[in-house]
């Protein structure tokens, strides 16, 4: 896999997100309060709201447009809403965030390096 060195973990605010300009559209990278990171297409499955602009809590982001709740670890909308934002593999190493650009094909390719929060 081609891991791209994106930014420092601290470049992303806790309980916040940054936007990466992916070749096929924006990618939102989120950071939780426990310093896990997740990457999803920055398009809400509802009406394409920019998820990166939402409020992050737990492992969820609330879309800023109509408040759909999206699970960060799967990209799935939380019931009763249905839909999915594509997710990308990310990891943290030595305080840097790495991302693989191709979309992950199955659900659980998220990799967390838990000890490396800078």
């Amino acid at each position, binding site marked *: 896999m081609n891991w791209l060195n994106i930014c420092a973990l601290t470049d992303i605010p806790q309980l916040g997100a940054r936007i990466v300009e992916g070749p096929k559209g924006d990618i939102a990278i989120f950071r939780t309060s426990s310093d896990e990171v997740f990457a999803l297409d920055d398009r809400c499955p509802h009406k394409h709201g920019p998820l990166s602009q939402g409020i992050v809590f737990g492992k969820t982001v609330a879309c800023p*447009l109509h408040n759909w709740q999206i699970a960060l670890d799967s990209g799935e909308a939380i019931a009763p809403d249905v839909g999915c934002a594509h997710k990308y593999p990310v990891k943290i190493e030595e305080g840097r965030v790495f991302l693989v650009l191709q979309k992950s094909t199955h659900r659980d390719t998220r990799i967390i390096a838990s000890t490396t929060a800078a």
Partner: protein
Amino acid sequence: MKKLKLVLIGNGMAGVRTLEELFKLAPDLYDVTVFGAEPHPNYNRILLSPVLAGEQTFEEIVLNNLAWYAEHNIELHLHRKVVEIDRGNRRVIAEDGTVAEYDRLIIATGSTPFILPIPGKDLQGVIGYRDIADTQAMIDTATTHRHAVVIGGGLLGLEAANGLKLRGMDVTVVHIGDWLMERQLDKTAGKLLQTALESRGLKFLLPKQTAELLDDGNGRVRAVRFAEGDEVPADLVVMAAGIRPNYALAESAGLACNRGLTVDDTMRTSDPNIFSIGECAAHRGIAYGLVAPLFEQAKVCANHLAMQGTAEYHGSVTSTKLKVTGIDLFSAGDFMGGDGCEEITLSDPIGGIYKKLVIRDDILVGACLYGDTADGGWYFRQIRENHNVSEIRDLLMFGEHAIGDAGHQGQDKAMLMSDEMEVCGCNGVCKGTIVKAITENNLLSVDEVKKHTKAASSCGSCTGLVEQILINTVGGAADVKPKSEKPVCNCTDHTHGVVRQAIREQHLITIPQAIAALGWKTPNGCATCRPALNYYLISTWPGEAKDDPQSRFINERAHANIQKDGTYSVIPRMWGGVTNAAELRRIADVADKYNVPMVKVTGGQRIDLLGIKKQDLPGVWKDLDMPCGHAYGKSIRTVKTCVGSEFCRFGTQNSTQMGIDLEHAMFGMWSPHKVKFAVSGCPRNCAESGIKDVGIIGVDSGWELYVGGNGGIKTEAGEFFTKVKTAEEVMEYSLAFIELYRQEAFYLERTVHYMHRVGLEHIKKAVLDDEERRRALYQQLLFALSLEQDPWKERIEQTALKKEFERIPVAAL
């Protein structure tokens, strides 16, 4: 740790709801065992009537399927009636000998139909109307027999009669009272109802006393005989003459009972390990027969089972709606009136409309509506919230509509809307979708409707409509509460009031502190509570509590207004609506430079640049070189002005200068919701001061102040507050009012709603009568404002703050 054992007797609506509430609070505290006398999982008993009428099926009304019980590891004993509670050994024993031990026990055995003690009551074909078995028996009988007699002209009896009629039977309702539903309706409404039901082919005998049920020779009922000796044929007799709390089991176990199993405000019986809720329980002497109170009881009971020990039940106001399709009937509270009450009635027997409102001490205490129940929900809210209605008394009868509103195509009456009409303009949800979601999923609260349909989940302006639809669909079962009684969100059981108070009293200054001190159930709240907490912290402890951008909605984080395509709109401030050539030139240049797709003049007397990319925002702000307009926030928006005495030939005061000064004074102010001011220079009121949070009108001898107006979703005229002489006084009085609002209102509560909740008197006392308090409030606001910077300027100057707007390019990687 070994889990405690919890046993529930009665697998019905109240008991299972308690378990649901308990699992929310403490999912792993107990091993749960449930005994149910019926062979079914918990279902929505209320909807037996639509099932009988053929409008729904049994499958559709199940509330908790077997998978739900399995998921929560509940040991479920269906079709097993408990016959003994052995309190000495803390165990219960069922009919078939099954034994279960308990540490805590819930008795929720509901009630049983009252069967008249008359000869023939045990004949075949004589039933009550309580459960699926009864309903099935009625449906079956309708296919083989012809004559049905329903004894009792109350809610249940009429729903049974209507259902049996629709199933093809010839139905007579026998009622002992002078009119139908005398416990829910007054005489006039009862008569109107009777006429309407007669036109559908139902027959009524009243007042009439049943003496005996006659045998057909084979042990089945043949006819009903009355006290006067006359008879009507009957193959089926439904006893719907009332219900009796089912507490015999509890009584035989020695628990204190008095027309129900006696419980205290924590829902405990005389044995502290035994709780009781639902129709079997008598709280302060009242055993309720509707579901809404039971749900409130369930919350309290769960709170104590979860060992939180904070909730108390204080009784409920109930409302009733007859679930007979096509008949509109609504009653709530004390609709009979009587001593010390005044009544307002409207009666149109030809049009089939009758309304009665009962008022005591300027407070609406009861309503009884027939024919037009569109305002039922609204009246119910007034009753529950104890609003003083003296000022809207003249208009009260004409409903919410008469009090003024706008939007929804002028449509605010859910009843009058067709299924295709749109209720939620933000998410495009129409009425039919909402009704369908409510009936299919057995929804009972607006929150549930929001979750399932998205209606009312964006701007929230249609919440009232959704609430009406809910009440019209499920009647008294609707779980509608004023905001002051509702928890902030699902992360906590605390109300806004409790949270505000704790933040002040415990000197909490960060969100993690608040969440820990108040026992939030989630690690970092959610998108509903975090913005509220952030506001409460910064408004209570200015200078100490630090604003948390991640707990702000995107508009207040980006300091611009997000649009549906993800771009932003930028509105620079124009003090009092006054601009000049240089500013206009810069705006034009920015529009060219950034290819701004639309430039629009707003209703707030300033200019909006729409369609700006987020990464361009700092550049746009820099090039504009104008202050932030805060058009995106829960903050001071604009001070609208008219020209005033400087130029206008009618002007009595310099309204423009007053507006500019006020706007400067409040610059950067955060508030529970947006705040709009207006200053008019004369009573012609060109700046529309009557519909602003604070409206100021210049008169020859000074200034008049109005508060709590609102020109938005629902037009509300401001209330006259006071009259002052000088511009300095305008400043002090209006800012003191706003500071009081900032300190006391709930997050997202506009001034009008705040004013209705606390009362104008309360506000006048603080700001007008108490000079010291007014000065203090004014100073507090000035202090808080002295710490605020222009957010645009900060973001132009400080690189750290710019990160929010920078994108991470991938090409460079």
